[in-house]
């Protein structure tokens, strides 16, 4: 197994995509984290909230501000890692190296999760950096002495990492990489958010909790209105299970289908 994992780590590490995505995640996460921070600042100036930069929900929203975008980029890496094997016809040599297909795909999933954790850390690190000036300037607190904050940070990293698996599943099920990327990005950036906003506005909280973004928000226990966090979020552990199901189902379907397919 270790050989398979090392091979798959090298496969991802030896193309440019991962570090381009890493830089994008860091830079864009900083921008996305500034959004809930700015809203909180406006709320405090207008007197809506007394001290938002001491509110755990708001602080966690800033730390995890990049999540909404980073998870999509993590998914893109998942799609491209599998999709490029189909696109460039390298799957045959990959299977020749590891003919036990399920083992190979598990190695790929593990390698993607490891890179996903790196993406997650970059995203949360950007969010935490952005929080520094806001918190210091407004007499807030970083809440780093609270276990809930760290749970939110760690789960935030894990949630971004697990979206690589959604990508892997889509990449296997839709063999054309470009179509898979378009479908994945449309679902992640358009369809899922629009449906979630509808559920949010209609206050269909149970349905919202079942959506990937709703589950993520509930799991991270964030409350910023810009992230459309539900009014009645599920407990964090239940939300984590919902999210895990979203990630594992396409990956599982992909693994099962790829394990049987002839490689032409």
């Amino acid at each position, binding site marked *: 197994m*270790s*050989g*398979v994992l090392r*091979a798959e780590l090298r496969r991802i590490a*030896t193309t440019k995509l991962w570090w381009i995505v890493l830089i994008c995640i860091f830079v864009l996460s900083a921008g996305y984290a500034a959004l809930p921070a700015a809203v909180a600042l406006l709320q405090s100036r207008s007197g809506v909230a007394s001290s938002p930069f001491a509110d755990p929900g708001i602080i966690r929203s800033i730390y995890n501000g990049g999540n909404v975008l980073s998870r999509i980029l993590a998914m893109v890496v998942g799609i491209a890692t599998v999709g*490029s094997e189909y696109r460039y016809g390298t799957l045959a*040599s990959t299977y020749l*190296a590891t003919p*036990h297909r399920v083992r190979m795909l598990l190695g790929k999933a593990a390698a993607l999760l490891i890179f996903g954790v790196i993406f997650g850390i970059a995203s949360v690190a950007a969010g935490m950096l952005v929080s520094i000036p806001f918190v210091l300037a407004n007499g807030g607190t970083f809440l780093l002495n609270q276990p809930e904050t760290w749970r939110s940070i760690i789960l935030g990293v894990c949630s971004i990492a697990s979206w690589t698996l959604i990508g892997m599943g889509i990449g296997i099920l839709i063999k054309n990489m470009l179509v898979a990327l378009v479908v994945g990005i449309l679902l992640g950036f358009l369809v899922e958010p629009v449906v979630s906003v509808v559920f949010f506005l209609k206050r269909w909280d149970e349905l919202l909790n079942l959506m990937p973004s709703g589950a993520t928000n509930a799991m991270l226990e964030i409350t910023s209105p810009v992230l459309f966090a539900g009014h009645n979020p599920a407990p964090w552990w239940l939300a984590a299970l919902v999210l895990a199901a979203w990630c594992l189902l396409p990956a599982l379907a992909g693994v099962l289908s790829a394990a049987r397919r002839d*490689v032409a």
Partner: protein
Amino acid sequence: MPPIIVDRLIKSYNGNLAVHNLSFMVEPGRVTGFLGPNGAGKTTTMRILVGLVTPTTGTATFGDLAYADLPHPQQTVGCVLDARFHPGRSGRNHLRVLAPTAGASDRRVDELLGEVGLGEVARQPVGEYSMGMQQRLALAAAMLGDPDYLILDEPANGIDPEGIRWLRIFLRDFAESGRAVLISSHLLNEIEATADDIVVINRGRLLAQMPMSELNLGEGITRARVPDLRAALQALAAIGAQMETAVDERGAYLRVHSHDVGQVGAALFSSGIVVDELVTERRDLEQEFFSMLEGSR
């Protein structure tokens, strides 16, 4: 080292038989040429052998073991199939991705790149490689685990003549060390100088499996074109040669049942006979191949 055994292999795609009840063996210590026209089922057979395609029935194994059951597949079998690469990855990194499962170190990777003559371009993206360089990279990838069996599907495609010569020597050395080579081609003369055995298939069926030496190449006929046929007949009868006269578009000539051009020439010379043409007539391998295919219809 056991042979490769293909046993009653059948592969059907939506009712079309790509491989039909195919059985043959590939012996260690020999280069086996796998011949057939395009679409004969060579690639499908090879892909079944290495587990990329599932057969409908039958088996293709290395001794008793299917490719997927080999404990160390890359250390046992090296494959050059369609030589496709991620264009953005360097040649060196392509090998480094395949190295961990082959038990190969980075040093082995660099050694191999040198051996196949890619040392200079090792860190350039494969997208910038020529066809011939990509084929050599594919061969280096196949050799990573220092395998006992080599399987090559049409490796001569896209290689320059020098590369083909190099490959021929490489495969001969590989087989002479006691290991087995299975190499496919749709051109017989491409394999003629390399193969010890040939397996010929068409439309998924076996037409022939035999040692190259048994392929009747029509050796032993010397064509002698002389102005004076009678004098030549006498001179050659004196050395006990069997012969007959034949006619082609350039006129009559003698077909002498001997492959010893020197002996025939010396006999004609000592009788003072003028010779216009004196050659060994070899039936073209391609011709042999096609007559075999004709017979299968």
